[in-house]
Every structure is written in structure tokens, then in C-alpha cells.
């Protein structure tokens, strides 16, 4: 592949820019190709010689953008990225910018009982390997940006998803934006505001029990641990939560329900939400999520469920899942990533990419 050098601005890095896709499997290279098309540059080649990595062209003094999408083999993906970043660093690249649309291990970002905060570990490893900048999208927790000591651009997919709603859902004005649990209520609200629609929140039994495990050391201790407390200590005990049966706060009768979330992986909670919404009178149910992980038998479960359509972006390759389930639709977000690449390389402002993004998005 020949690399076409772009015209350089005064602020741009003298050496020019190079884009690599780090993935060794072809379906993950798709996004890289699309991004590169917008930036009018051919994607440079990295080869994997058994376990060795070889950069096929000079990166000395250049801005190197490494695009990495997370595939089935998360740990291999991470190692591939680290090896590439380090290879570029030792080859004297000027800047090494990671373009990682879905940041892996972002669900392990809080202290669990004697667990590891893997996002922090990953952030440290990437910075140590030589990453100088990170472009990602819809981080599961915004605080993850703080784990890095390099600039992090957390782009948003919401403008694309909103556009999809307005263009592809004919009677969207009769829709209600739904949060499938109270934790995604803020996101639902930011969508609803921009579409001038109402929201509904689902709350109840079938919720994610995992939220209780965050920092398994409870303070104050729950009733169960009474025996462990010294009798003379007058510590007030925490009343364990009593979850009401599943309820929908807000009216979805005779409307389209659009469930929004950042990640769709294990679909059980989405299926339960869809059932409930159907019972309460919603006539069509959409699920919109930025990152479509859709692991194990998610496609099959969605196909058999009350959900009408699942819309995800192409941050994570999901071709196989689409073959198994006709309800999955893709929104292409490569444009915003390539725009980010162009602006970073030319030293231009990124604020245009964040216009109309509220505090809660």
C-alpha cells in the first residue's frame, strides 16, 4: 500500500501522519479502513511474524495513529496494542495516538472486594508503553479519563444515534426514551432533551445485583454481619435494600419505547425491560447502544424477544451477530473518529465535535 502524504498546516507535525490498524483479524480492520478513507490516507501495514511485530515503513518524527477495535480475544487485542505502541515509540515516532473506540475492561473500573481496578492497570500500561494521547468513545465511566496522565478525548456517539432516530423511526415524535435501570436515567434524559420527548425509568427486582458488590466492604455493616461487631459499639446498621417488584415510572402506553444505554452485552436485563414495556402498552421497542458487544447467545435471544430493533455503532465489529439476528442495525461512526484524527494532527480545536453534548451525556 502506498502512503499518500497530506498537505501540512503550520501547526501540524512536520513529519506527517501515519495510520495503523493494530488488529490482526480482518473484521476488525474494517473500521480502520473506513476512517482512513475519510482522512485520505492508506492504512499502513503492520505484520505479525509469529510473535514478532514489524512496522513496514518509517514512523520517525511522525504522528502515529493506531486504531484498535476490541475483538473476541480481548487480552490478545490489548497485547497487540501495547506491542505496537512500544514499537512505534522505540522507532522515534513524534506522537503516538491510540484510537480505541471501545475501551476494554471499562466495567472493571471500581474497587471490588479484593479485585483489581483493571481500567487503571490498563491506563498505566498504555502510558508506560508510550501512548501520548487517547481517542475513545462513550467511556463506561467518565472518571476513567482520570486514570490516564495523557490527554483523553471521550467522543460521543449520541449525535449519530439521535440522527438515526430522527431519520429511521417514522413516528419518533410518539416515542418515549427509556432507562432500563436508574443508573442510565441521566443518559436517557440527555437523549430525551435533544429530541423533546419524555422519559421513563424502569426500577425493580430484576436489576443488576452486581451494583451491590462494588466495594464489597460495606460501611456501615449490613444486618447480616451483626455478629462481627463488638457489642459496645453503637454503629447504626444499614438497612438492606428492599427492592419493589419491577415498575415503570413514566407512561409508555400507546407509544414507541426507545431504550438507550452505552453498552449492550448480556441481554437479560434488556429482555426483561422489553417484556415489561410491552405489558405496559408500548407498541414498538428499540434498543440503542453505542457499543454492541453482544456476547454468547445474545443474537438468538434478541431474535426471539419482544424487541423490534437493536441499533449499535461500529465501535465493535459484530458481523457474526448480524448474521444470526436480523434485528441488529449498525450506525457508522467512523466519520467522527477521522475528523478527530485530522484535527489532532493539524493542531486544530476539537470543541466542534463536542457541541450539543450536555453534561449528562
Amino acid at each position, binding site marked *: 500500500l502506498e502512503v499518500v502524504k497530506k498537505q501540512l498546516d503550520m501547526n501540524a507535525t512536520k513529519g506527517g501522519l501515519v495510520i495503523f490498524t493494530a488488529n490482526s483479524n480482518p473484521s476488525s480492520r474494517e473500521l480502520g479502513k473506513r476512517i482512513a478513507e475519510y482522512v485520505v490516507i492508506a492504512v499502513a501495514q503492520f505484520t505479525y511474524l509469529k510473535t514478532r511485530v514489524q512496522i513496514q515503513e518509517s514512523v520517525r518524527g511522525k504522528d502515529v495513529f493506531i486504531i484498535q477495535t476490541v475483538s473476541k480475544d480481548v*487480552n490478545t487485542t490489548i497485547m497487540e496494542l501495547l506491542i505496537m505502541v512500544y514499537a512505534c515509540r522505540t522507532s522515534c515516532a513524534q506522537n503516538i495516538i491510540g484510537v480505541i473506540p471501545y475501551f476494554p475492561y471499562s466495567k472493571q473500573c471500581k474497587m471490588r472486594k479484593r479485585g*483489581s481496578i483493571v481500567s487503571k492497570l490498563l491506563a498505566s500500561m498504555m502510558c508506560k508503553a508510550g501512548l501520548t494521547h487517547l481517542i475513545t468513545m462513550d467511556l463506561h465511566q467518565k472518571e476513567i479519563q482520570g486514570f490516564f496522565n495523557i490527554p483523553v478525548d471521550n467522543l460521543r456517539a449520541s449525535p449519530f444515534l439521535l440522527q438515526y432516530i430522527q431519520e429511521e423511526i417514522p413516528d419518533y415524535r410518539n416515542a418515549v426514551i427509556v432507562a432500563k435501570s436508574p443508573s442510565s436515567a441521566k443518559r436517557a434524559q440527555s437523549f430525551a432533551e435533544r429530541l423533546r420527548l419524555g422519559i421513563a425509568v424502569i426500577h425493580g427486582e430484576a436489576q443488576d445485583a452486581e451494583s451491590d458488590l462494588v466495594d464489597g466492604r460495606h460501611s456501615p455493616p449490613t444486618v447480616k454481619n451483626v455478629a462481627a461487631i463488638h457489642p459496645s459499639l453503637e454503629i447504626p446498621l444499614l438497612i438492606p435494600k428492599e427492592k419493589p417488584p419491577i415498575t415503570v415510572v413514566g407512561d409508555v402506553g400507546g407509544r414507541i419505547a426507545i431504550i438507550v444505554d452505552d453498552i449492550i452485552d448480556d441481554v437479560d436485563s434488556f429482555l426483561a425491560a422489553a417484556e415489561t414495556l410491552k405489558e405496559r402498552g408500548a407498541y414498538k421497542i428499540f434498543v440503542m447502544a453505542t457499543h454492541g458487544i453482544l*456476547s454468547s447467545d445474545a443474537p438468538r435471544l434478541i431474535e426471539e424477544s419482544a424487541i423490534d430493533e437493536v441499533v449499535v455503532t461500529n465501535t465493535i465489529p459484530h458481523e457474526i451477530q448480524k448474521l444470526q439476528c436480523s434485528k441488529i442495525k449498525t450506525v457508522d461512526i467512523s466519520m467522527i473518529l477521522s475528523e478527530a484524527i485530522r484535527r489532532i494532527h493539524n493542531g486544530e480545536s476539537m470543541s466542534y465535535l463536542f457541541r450539543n453534548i450536555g453534561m449528562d451525556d
Partner: protein
Amino acid sequence: MPNIKIFSGSSHQDLSQRIADRLGLELGKVVTKKFSNQETCVEIGESVRGEDVYIVQSGCGEINDNLMELLIMINACKIASASRVTAVIPCFPYARQDKKDKGFFDIPVDNLYAEPAVLKWIKENIPEWKNCTIVSPDAGGAKRVTSIADRLNVDFALIHKERKKANEVDRMVLVGDVKDRVAILVDDMADTCGTICHAADKLISAGATKVYAILTHGIFSGPAISRINNACFEAVVVTNTIPQEEKMKHCPKIQVIDISMILAEAIRRTHNGESVSYLFSHVPL
């Protein structure tokens, strides 16, 4: 006074158990699993606050998964206030790309040698050892081979590749004498085994009576097992830095040297602040 706590990663439970047995300890409770999205999750099941922690994980099998698991376990122990965390990595991954020298790490590294265990095995299992020849399958292993040969007071030989022309297959040339002797090939790792099988053929045609292969790390990927079964080895001996049970079922020529006592002794000495260098030339009982 901190206690030793040994945790095992999922790469080599058997070796970890052996190490713990030798030290008279139980393996620490830890749960390692993968979520449905293939992300690794680690939860340490007992307190490590103020303890001297050793995590045993070998760079074999699914290397990247095992590596991430190791990193996450180390991180988990550190933030659970372990006093010190030491990684015991019998087979260091990506070793063919970087040298595992001390200068590459900011932390203390103890690179133990299988050599003492290898010498012991040779004396106990090869009756004709006093009249054998130690052979290196490539020029790079000359130092390793001469060290063993000197300690056994036997001869050594090496095989080197001669590249005649650009498109021609390399010719293997034997430098040294193996006629009417038992030849022992020694190398640090065996992956696809192409090289050592060719070397064995070469040695037989040069007059060796029997050919043994002794390798520290038996990776045995791809066609390795079938190549060994079709080659003329008396035995292929590896250490248990990498689990070999499965492969031994498919290949009766493979024998295993247990090095768990070397690792256990290293752990004990490190914990007590004793010198580890004794292990560079002796096998603990």
C-alpha cells in the same frame, strides 16, 4: 512477620500445587474467570494484607490471556496491601523477542537455571553418560552446551546451518564427533521441533548410537508431536515449566523433569532473605 502466600494463575495449576506441597503450604484462594465478553476477572479469596505474595503463572498456552491474568492478580494484591508481590514465571512469554536479562527490568530478577536438574537427570537416566557427547542444535547454544559438557567431563559438538545460496535450503553441518556414542541434544526451548528433528537425523547418520533431546521449555506447538513420534529419539526430555500431561498422552517419548523444588526453594530463600545463588549450581533435595 509476613507469611508466604502462593497464588496460582490458570496456566499451570499442577506446578503451583507441587511448589506449595514442597513448602508445606496450601495454595491461596483465588477465583479467576472470564466474563462472557472474554474480559478476565480476578478476585483474591483471602486477606493478603502485609503478606509476602508469590504468584505462579507460566507464559504458555493462551499467552496473552495468562499474561493479563497475571498483571491483574499482581495489581489486585498490591491494592489489597500486600507487603511484597513476586511473580514466579517459569517460562517467560515473548522471550524470543527480548532477552530476559536483568537490565531490562527495574525490579530484582532471579533467572534460575534448569542446568543442575538436567545434569542430575542425565546421570540418573542415561547409563552411558560418561561416554556421551552433548550437542547443540545451533551455534547460539554453544555456551549452554559447553557448560554441561564441562560439568560432566564429556565432549561436546554443535550443528550449524550453512546457507549456500539465497534460494537453497540450509545445509546442516555437524562440528565435532558423535560416532559410536550416545548424543544428547540440549536447547532452551522446543516449539515446532523442526530443528531438533533434523539435528537428530544428522546425528544418527553421523554414527550416533542413541539420540536424546533435553529441553528446558517444551512448547510443542503445531506439528511438533507428530514430528517427534516420527523421529529417531530415544527420549525427549523437558521440564515441567509448561504443563505436559496432555502431550505425553500423544507421545510416549516425552519425559518430564520436575523443577518444582527449585522454584519452591527459591521462594523460601527469597522470603527468608537468603541467597538464591546456591540454586544456580545445586538441585535442592
